[in-house]
């Protein structure tokens, strides 16, 4: 159902989407994800769901090097393991209580994840990462349109959100960011207006 190819790295956020103390929420192939940074700057990508009662982690809070669930304030460390349960402060937390951790890589100003991705994320030319443009079309049709009519001056990466929507991120290869952004918006209009 996810339409994700195992072994492939997908860009799920720009690095600038993840300031300190923020929990960034996104989707990849129908999977809800939460991304956050620990104090060392490392990025963590988890299933956006506390294993205790299913509340989205993205509702929660970053406390130092831990993510705290908003429902019962259970804390989860960088490895995803639960470290503290305030309702039972003396409990040695069982190792089975663990967030579902996704692979993560940083490159080209982007945060990458995927299902058992192999190797390194794709090499991209240097340039500024533009704002994410969501398009209400499946990734396959966006990719198809880009093959038919490539956009010049831009390197593009696609994030399939689910079967109906895709985020396009552009890396501007020159300094004309406005033109590059307009090109992406025009792409969105063209695709969403197409029957």
């Amino acid at each position: 159902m996810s339409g994700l190819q195992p072994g492939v790295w997908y860009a799920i956020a720009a690095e600038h989407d993840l300031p300190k103390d923020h929990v960034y929420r996104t989707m990849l192939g129908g999977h809800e994800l939460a991304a956050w940074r620990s104090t060392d700057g490392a990025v963590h990508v988890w299933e956006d769901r506390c294993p205790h009662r299913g509340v989205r982690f993205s509702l929660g809070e970053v406390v130092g090097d831990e993510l705290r669930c908003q429902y019962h304030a259970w804390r989860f460390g960088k490895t995803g393991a639960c470290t503290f349960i305030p309702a039972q402060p003396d409990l040695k937390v069982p190792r089975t209580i663990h967030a579902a951790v996704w692979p993560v890589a940083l490159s080209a100003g982007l945060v990458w994840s995927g299902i058992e991705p192999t190797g390194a994320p794709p090499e991209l030319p240097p340039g500024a990462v533009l704002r994410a443009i969501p398009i209400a079309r499946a990734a396959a049709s966006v990719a198809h349109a880009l093959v038919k009519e490539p956009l010049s001056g831009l390197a593009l990466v696609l994030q399939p959100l689910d079967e109906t929507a895709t985020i396009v991120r552009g890396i501007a290869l020159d300094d004309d960011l406005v033109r590059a952004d307009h090109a992406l918006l025009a792409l969105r209009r063209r695709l969403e207006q197409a029957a």
Partner: protein
Amino acid sequence: MTPVDPILWNDWHPVAARCMLDPARAHETMLLGVPLVVTINADGTIAVQRVDHAAPHQDERYGLVWVCLGTPTREILPIPEADEPDRPIVVVGSVGVRASGPRVIENFLDLGHLGYVHARYLGDDPHTRVLPYTVEPLPEGGIIATQCKMFQPQASPAATEGFMVDYIYKVERPLATCLYKANPVQRDRFDIIFLIVQPVTEETSIAHPLLLCLPDGTTPAALRAFQQTIFMQDKPILENQVPKRLPLADGAELPIAADKSSVAYRRWLSAIGLTWGVIRADEKARAA
């Protein structure tokens, strides 16, 4: 389409509060996926109609309008305390919530969230430890949790200081629960709060809280406002639970000892074979 759960289909559910009905405007709502129209005449007569079918069984009690879509197999939920003369019923108001009915009930039973979701009202950091309590089955079905204790900074509008509050929780019907809570003034008597959930669809609900509190000088408006504040703190949590339907399989979520009443509630729903608003133990979890 999922066949509608016979347990809920043949039970009574609130679909409106009398105090919120307006003669100038029909009240449109939904019960178990069935659209309903509730009207009130200038003389106060209430009628519930189905668009596609003869009028369903209907009645009024505790300030709420109740409907049974099937064949009633039992009475409307009895609340004996509603007959006590010194206990006025306060209808808190109906609150829509994008969560399944069982998730809403389970949250009401939950002690561990009080110090965080209701911080400075019903609990507070660092008094977040859930002390051991007892959960037992009720003879007529359902569960009861006793000896629940929680330190509460502001247990009710009348509370002037924090104190250790004793609670008893009961679930007598799959979508009706209540708590007995020591009154902040008459500490040897209980205030009672009911939460009755109208199952709208499998993943949406309308909560109908009722207060049966001993008069302590708090106006009904203040009681209502307090309870609405509390519910509004729960609503974003409930609407961010994934999956929306309550998973009943052991191990689907990870309870600890403090979650004993949740475990008992889920097991009871499994045992009676409830299918609405839950992911049954034998069903593979559908995507959220």
